[in-house]
C-alpha cells in the first residue's frame, strides 16, 4: 500500500500506477465486520464458559490441583499445539483429527448404548435387521428378473417390507355399524381370521436358541460397520485392499474386549458398542495417516492428552489436593431426577429426548422433503393453481415464524383431543415438535432443490428420462446435502424446544425411563426448566447448568454426525 505523492508536473489526469486509490471505506467496513464476528463469538464462548463453570464446580478444587494439571496437561498439550502450528502443519491436523474422531465415536456410542439398553434388545434388533435384509433381497431380485414390470415393482416395494416385518397377522373385527346421523345400529360386523403368514421377524424367534446378545451385536453392528468403513479405505487405496482386513481386526479386538468388559463390571453389549465406535473410525483414519506417511508426530497428541490426565490425577490424589466436584459427572448422566441436588440426574430425560428426536426425524423429514419435492418439481407455477401454490408457499413461510407455544396448543388439540392419544407421551411430544419444524424443513429443502441448476433437469429430460427418474437420479442426489443441512438446523431447534412440551403436558422429574413411544415422556429442556424453578440454589445453578451442558453436547453430537454425512455426500 505504500504510496508516493505524485508531483504535479504531468499534464495528464491519468492516475499513475503508484498513486494509492482510497480504500478507507473498504478498510473500515472490513474492520467493522471482523469486530462483529469476534464480538459474537466471544459472547457465545463467554456464556458457555459461564455455564460450564457452574456445571463443573471448578471453584471447589484446591489451587494445587490446578497447578498439577497445568503442568501435566495444559503445558504439554499447548506446547505441542504451538509446535504443530509453527513447524508442522500436517502433524497438527493429524493431531486434532486423531483426538476428535475417537471423542465423537465415544459420544455416538453413548447414544447407541442407550438405544440398545432401553429400546431394543439385541435379539429384537437381529430380527429386525434380518427381516429388512430379506425384504431388500426380494426387492432387488424382483427388479433383476422382471425389470419391465413397473406396477408390480411398486407393489413389491410396498408389500415386501410389511410382510417381512409383520407377516399376515390374525385379524379380528367386532364392531357395530350404525347410521352416521341418528346412531341407529344397522348390524354388527364381527369376524376373525387366523394368522396366515408369520413374519420373518417371528420366524427367527422360532429358532430354539439364539446366540448371546454380544455375539449378535458383533455380527450386526461391528462387522457391517467395519465393512462400510473398509470400503472407504479400499476406495482410497490403489490396491483396493482394506475391507476384509478391517472387518477381521475390528471383530477380533471387539470380541476380546467384550469378554474382558464384564470382568471389570461393564456390560458386554455396552463394551461392544463403545469399542466398535471407538475403534473402527479411528483405524480407518490411522490407515490414511500411515499410507500418506505424513504428520506421524501428530499421533502423539492424543497420547499426551490421555497420559497427562492420568499422571495429573495420580499426582493430585497422592499429594492430597481436592479435585473439583462437578455436577456433571457419570452419576448425573445415569441416574434419575431426585429431590436432593447431589443425587439428581438426567438419565430419563436424556433417553426421553432421544426418543422424541427419533419421532421428530421420522415424521418431519419424510413429510417435509416430500412436500418440498411436490412444491418445487410437480406443482404448477402458473395459472390459478399456480397462484394457489404461491399462496401456500407464503404461508409455509409464515408458519415457520409462529411461536412454538402455539404449536403446543395445536399438538394438544390435534393429537390429544383429536386423535385421542394420552397427553405427555413420547409420540405426542415428537409429533408436535415435528409439526413445529416442518415448515423449516420444507423451506430449506425447497431451497436445496431450487439450487439444482435447471440445465441438469433439461439434460435429464433430454435423455428421455421421466420426471420421476429425473427427480430420483438428478435432483435429489444433488439437493441431498442441502436438505440435510436444513434438517440439521431444524433438529437443533427441535431438541431444545420447551414451550410445546409444557403445553402438551410432558411431566418434569420423571423418575422412570420411557418404555417405548407410547409411554410418558421426559425431556431434557423440560427438566432443565423445572430445575430452574426449584428452591434450592444448587438446583438453580449447578444441576441446571449440568443439564444445559448435557443438552448442548447431545446437540453437538447430532449436528456432528449429520455434518459428516453431508460432507460424505457432497464429495460424491
Amino acid at each position, binding site marked *: 500500500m505504500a504510496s508516493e505523492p505524485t508531483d504535479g508536473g504531468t499534464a495528464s489526469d491519468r492516475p499513475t500506477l503508484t498513486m494509492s486509490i482510497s480504500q478507507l471505506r473498504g478498510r473500515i467496513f472490513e474492520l467493522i465486520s471482523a469486530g462483529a464476528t469476534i464480538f459474537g463469538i466471544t459472547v457465545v464462548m463467554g456464556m458457555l464458559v459461564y455455564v460450564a463453570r457452574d456445571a463443573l464446580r471448578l471453584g471447589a478444587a484446591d489451587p494445587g490441583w490446578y497447578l498439577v494439571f497445568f503442568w501435566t496437561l495444559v503445558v504439554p498439550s499447548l506446547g505441542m499445539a504451538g509446535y504443530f502450528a509453527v513447524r508442522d502443519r500436517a502433524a497438527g491436523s493429524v493431531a486434532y483429527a486423531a483426538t476428535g474422531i475417537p471423542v465423537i465415536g465415544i459420544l455416538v456410542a453413548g447414544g447407541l448404548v442407550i438405544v440398545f439398553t432401553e429400546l431394543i434388545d439385541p435379539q429384537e434388533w437381529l430380527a429386525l435387521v434380518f427381516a429388512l435384509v430379506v425384504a431388500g433381497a426380494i426387492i432387488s431380485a424382483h427388479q*433383476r428378473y422382471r*425389470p*419391465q414390470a*413397473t*406396477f408390480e415393482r411398486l407393489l413389491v416395494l410396498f408389500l415386501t417390507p410389511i410382510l417381512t416385518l409383520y407377516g399376515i397377522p390374525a385379524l379380528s373385527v367386532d364392531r357395530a355399524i350404525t347410521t352416521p346421523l341418528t346412531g341407529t345400529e344397522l348390524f354388527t360386523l364381527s369376524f376373525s381370521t387366523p394368522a396366515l403368514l408369520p413374519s420373518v421377524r417371528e420366524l427367527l424367534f422360532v429358532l430354539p436358541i439364539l446366540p448371546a446378545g454380544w455375539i449378535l451385536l458383533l455380527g450386526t453392528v461391528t462387522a457391517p460397520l467395519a465393512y462400510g468403513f473398509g470400503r472407504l479405505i479400499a476406495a482410497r487405496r490403489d490396491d483396493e485392499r482394506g475391507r476384509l482386513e478391517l472387518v477381521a481386526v475390528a471383530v477380533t479386538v471387539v470380541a476380546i474386549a467384550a469378554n474382558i468388559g464384564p470382568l471389570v463390571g461393564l456390560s458386554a453389549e455396552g463394551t461392544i458398542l463403545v469399542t466398535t465406535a471407538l475403534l473402527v473410525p479411528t483405524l480407518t483414519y490411522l490407515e490414511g495417516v500411515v499410507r500418506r506417511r505424513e504428520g506421524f508426530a501428530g499421533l502423539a497428541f492424543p497420547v499426551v492428552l490421555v497420559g497427562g490426565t492420568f499422571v495429573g490425577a495420580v499426582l493430585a490424589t497422592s499429594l492430597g489436593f481436592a479435585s473439583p466436584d462437578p455436577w456433571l459427572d457419570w452419576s448425573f448422566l445415569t441416574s434419575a431426577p431426585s429431590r436432593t441436588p447431589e443425587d439428581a440426574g438426567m438419565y430419563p430425560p436424556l433417553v426421553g429426548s432421544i426418543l422424541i428426536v427419533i419421532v421428530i426425524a421420522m415424521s418431519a423429514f419424510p413429510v417435509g422433503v416430500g412436500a418440498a419435492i411436490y412444491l418445487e*418439481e410437480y406443482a*404448477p*407455477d*402458473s395459472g390459478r393453481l399456480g397462484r394457489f401454490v404461491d399462496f401456500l408457499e407464503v404461508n409455509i413461510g409464515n408458519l415457520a415464524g409462529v411461536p412454538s407455544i402455539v404449536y403446543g396448543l395445536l399438538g394438544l388439540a390435534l393429537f390429544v383431543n383429536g386423535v385421542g392419544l394420552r397427553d405427555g407421551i413420547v409420540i405426542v411430544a415428537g409429533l408436535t415438535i415435528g409439526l413445529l419444524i416442518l415448515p423449516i424443513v420444507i423451506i430449506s429443502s425447497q431451497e436445496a432443490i431450487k439450487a439444482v*441448476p435447471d*440445465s*441438469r*433437469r*433439461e*439434460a*435429464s*429430460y*433430454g*435423455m*428421455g*428420462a*421421466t*420426471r*420421476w*427418474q429425473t427427480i430420483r*437420479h*438428478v435432483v435429489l*442426489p*444433488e439437493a441431498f446435502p442441502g436438505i440435510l443441512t436444513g434438517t440439521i438446523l431444524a433438529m437443533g431447534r427441535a431438541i431444545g424446544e420447551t414451550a410445546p412440551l409444557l403445553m402438551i403436558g410432558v411431566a418434569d422429574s420423571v423418575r422412570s425411563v420411557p418404555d417405548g413411544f407410547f409411554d410418558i415422556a421426559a425431556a431434557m429442556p423440560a427438566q432443565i426448566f423445572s430445575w430452574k424453578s426449584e428452591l434450592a440454589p444448587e438446583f438453580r445453578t449447578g444441576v441446571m447448568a449440568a443439564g444445559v451442558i448435557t443438552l448442548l453436547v447431545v446437540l453437538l453430537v447430532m449436528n456432528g454426525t449429520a455434518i459428516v454425512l453431508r460432507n460424505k455426500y457432497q464429495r460424491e
Partner: protein
Amino acid sequence: MSQPTTDSATEETAESDDRLIETEVSVSETVTQPAGASTIIDVGDLSVYYHDDQALRSVSMEIPERQVTALIGPSGCGKSTFLRCLNRMNDLIDAARVDGTVELLGQNVYDDDVDPVALRRRIGMVFQEPNPFPKSIYDNVAYGLRVQGKADDIDLDAEVERALRSAALWDEVKDQLDKSGLELSGGQQQRLCIARAIAPDPEVILMDEPASALDPVATSKIEDLIDDLAEEYTVIIVTHNMQQAARISDKTAVFLTGGELVEFDDTQTIFENPADPRVEDYITGKFG
C-alpha cells in the same frame, strides 16, 4: 414442466412407433445431396410464442435423414427455440406455446397420444452449455441407457466405451471413468455430453452450438465427430460459425431476426448462390 409421464406409458410408445415412411426430398439434386435421402422430420407451419411474443413465424422445413442440417442466423432469431420444438423440450417451459406440426417419420409429435418422453428417447440432444451430471464419467454416459431401461440387456461397459470412442473422448478418460464429469475441461465436458447423447442410440441428434465454448483443436475434433455421426444418425446443428456450417453440413437453414426461416437449401447453394439477398448479406457479414 407440465406433461404427465409415466414409466409404463413410455415403454409402450417407444416400441410401437417404429414405422418408417419414405418420403422423397424433392428440392434439388446437387452433388452434395446423395440421391434418395428421405425426410425424417417434416416441420409444417411451426410457430412458437413465449407469452405473447412470437419467437418463430410459421416455419416449414423437411429435414433429410442421415445428413447434417445446419441452422444459422443472428442471435435471438429462434434457432434454439426451433431445435427444442423437435423433441418437445419446450413443453418444459410454461410460457411457451407451439402451433403447427412436427412429423417424425409421418407421425406428428404434437399429437395428444405422443408421449414426449418416448419422443426424447428417439431424438437426443446436446445443449448450448455443457451440462454433465455431477456423477462419474461412466455414470454420465450410462445415464440414458439406464433411464431408458436398456442397461440390463446389454454389455454396459462396452456401450459406454463405444459412446466415448465415438465422441473422441475415450483416449483421454479411459483410465479415470470414476472421475466426476464436472472435473473435465469445458471441451471435454461437451464431448462427454455428446457421448451421453449418442449412448442410447437415438435416431436424431440435436446439437445447439456444441462447439461455441471450445478451442480450435477441440472444435475440429467435434466437427470430425459430426461427420462420422452423420453416417448413422441424422444430425441437426445450430452454429454461429459460417465456415463450420459450410464445412460440415449438407443442408443449411437460415433464420433471420423475428423468427422467420428465410431460406433452406443445400449448403452449397446457400453459401454460393443464395436466392434471398438478405441471406447473402448475412453470410457476408453485412447483416447485423
